[in-house]
């Protein structure tokens, strides 16, 4: 009896174990597909899968799981991917706290990780790893570029605010790294705060000549709505995270005229990007966000390296091919710094009416050319 149970269990396990085919590449994507931050994960996934489909490469097998924005769940999904699904490469995480929980243990086990979004400073600096590549940006990049832009435009008294959590403090210090003038005030709001009446009164009373804020997700929608309705007309600046196409859609005319920085824009003029935006609209019926472009570029990078080597057969050649970044990016020029984070231009966009009642981002210039993060110095690669 006991023997037969064991045999049965063994058979069942054998049946669920997946045996990798000769050339198959298994990609584990853990991303956020439910909860308040779901639109980021959905766009990363859709952009990524679009590139895989376009390539026609049937050897790539993508396994997608939802982390529901929970670090513990992301961690157990990562173990499952490595132990049971036998993946070769992992990608997909949106949030920095989840990336910090998952990425170090994944790369320590020799797995490759390509980040399509999260770029915490530790992974760019002292905890960098030869198998970790960030295809999006280091977290500070867009804030730093905005600091530079606000200074270049001659503003002398910005009022800056962000939620009181690590990415919020990083955002304001990133801004101040390149904006070195006076500040009207610097305030930290509660994470998840929905009512900004008190802050808006302070902004009005402060005599500021500009406002910079980093309030991701619903917080940004609330703030901007209330700001526009308060009749305050001090110009507003922010990173693209607060003004992706989904948020701009929810804000409507409240967001008109806001300036934001992004490493990508849907009207960026290069062949790859034009084709990408057109294909994405045709497939999903909406304008891609920066997250979709990041998912797309991540898949393109992966595909370019797979042409050279298989991650399991020859990891060194595969890694070299990733470092070379020999692919056509939607951002135009793209290369990696020594810490395997991007060196790229950061653009400036303005929110304008799109002609059929809605609003959209329009490219208006470049904030910083060949931007590179400051943490690479702490990285031993």
């Amino acid at each position, binding site marked *: 009896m006991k023997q037969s149970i064991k045999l049965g269990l063994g058979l069942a396990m054998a049946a669920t174990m997946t045996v990798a085919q000769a050339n198959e590449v298994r990609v584990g994507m853990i991303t956020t597909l439910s909860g308040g931050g779901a639109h980021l994960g959905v766009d990363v996934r859709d952009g990524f899968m679009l590139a895989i489909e376009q390539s026609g490469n049937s050897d790539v097998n993508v396994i997608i799981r939802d982390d529901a924005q929970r670090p513990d769940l992301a961690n157990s999904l990562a173990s499952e991917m490595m132990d049971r699904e036998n993946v070769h490469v992992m990608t997909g995480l949106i949030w920095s706290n989840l990336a910090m929980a998952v990425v170090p243990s994944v790369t320590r086990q020799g797995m490759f990780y390509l980040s399509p979004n999260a770029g915490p400073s530790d992974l760019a600096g002292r905890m960098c790893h030869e198998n970790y590549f960030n295809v999006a940006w280091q977290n500070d990049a867009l804030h730093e570029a905005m600091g530079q832009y606000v200074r270049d435009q001659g503003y002398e008294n910005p009022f800056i605010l962000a939620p009181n959590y690590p990415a919020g403090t990083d955002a304001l210090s990133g801004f101040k790294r390149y904006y070195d003038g006076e500040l009207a005030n610097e305030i930290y709001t509660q994470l998840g705060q929905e009512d900004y009446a008190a802050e808006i009164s302070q902004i009005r009373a402060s005599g500021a000549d500009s406002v910079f804020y980093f309030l991701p997700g619903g917080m940004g929608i609330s703030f901007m709505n*209330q700001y526009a309705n308060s009749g305050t007309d001090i110009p507003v600046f922010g990173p693209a995270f607060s003004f992706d196409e989904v948020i701009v859609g929810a*804000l409507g005319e409240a967001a008109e005229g806001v300036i934001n920085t992004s490493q990508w824009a849907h009207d960026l003029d290069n062949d790859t990007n034009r084709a990408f935006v057109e294909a994405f609209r045709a497939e999903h019926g909406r304008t891609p966000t920066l997250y979709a472009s990041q998912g797309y570029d991540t898949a393109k990078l992966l595909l370019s390296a797979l042409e050279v080597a298989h991650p399991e057969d020859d990891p060194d050649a595969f890694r070299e091919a990733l470092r070379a970044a020999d692919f056509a990016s939607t951002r135009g020029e793209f290369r990696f710094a020594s810490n395997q984070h991007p060196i790229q231009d950061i653009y400036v966009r303005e929110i304008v009416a799109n002609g059929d009642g809605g609003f959209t981002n329009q490219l208006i210039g470049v904030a910083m050319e060949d931007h590179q993060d400051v943490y690479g110095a702490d990285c031993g690669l």
Partner: protein
Amino acid sequence: MTVALIVEQILNGLQLGTMLFLMASGLTLVFGVMGLINLAHGSFYMAGAFVTATVTATTGNFWLGLLVGVLAAAAIGVIVEFVIMRRLYDRGHLDQVLATFALILIFSEGTYMIFGSSPLFLSVPQELRGSVSLPFDISYSRYRLAIIGMGVLVAIGLYLLISKTRLGMRIRAGENDREMIGALGVDIKTLYTLVFALGAGLAGLAGSTIGALQSVRVGMGEPVLIMAFVVIVIGGIGSIKGALVGALLVGLVDTLGRIFMPLTLVSFMPASQAMSIGSAVSSMLIYIMMATILAFRPHGLFGSK
């Protein structure tokens, strides 16, 4: 620090208090009359906002949207009371908490399925945009002022309803002795349904009006619900007057604390430290206030038992 800023912050505190009163009055009525702890009260808030946003988007008329949103929230309240809450009145509070917590999850997932994960768009009606000029060189958002006015009207309306009408008399009687008014021939089931619908409608009204200021999204009701519970605990569970005083107190303390806490700390520590410590302490203020009040008045300011 100008007079204008202080007055503006007091108005902001009153506006937050008004909104909390709309939530807390329903919560406290339902608890007072039926002895039911309803964690799903925030879901009516969310439902009101979603319906208002949808109707406003299709018809282009905010006021119609607001009306439909409030009615829809009340209607959902009737259905929920009829199908689920009825079975919970005789159960212990733990069962009620479990069942209504399950309702939160069902409402949230249901809203995801119907409306998707992106927030909906709802803007302040044209007539109430911009700001009005008040004495002392103060300009204040017209919409927020209207919310305060609406809150005053609702408070007066509730006062008249509870103290001057037959329905109100029954509600008060229900609070005092549930079995006895049933024995006296009052249709207690209909009374319960009406009270529950009234509470749900008020929550829907709060959600719809605040939805235009904040974002209409899944989970918008839960943070408000927590504050509403603080309000009714401070005010005394079951007391409408307590809900009003508690709501204004919480609104004012929370808003003024957020501004003046960091400013007080700045005088004796570096600015960036004062900012982060100040904002951390100010988010605790209402809970500290609740603990202090409960230490001296265990049943809240106007609690009877």
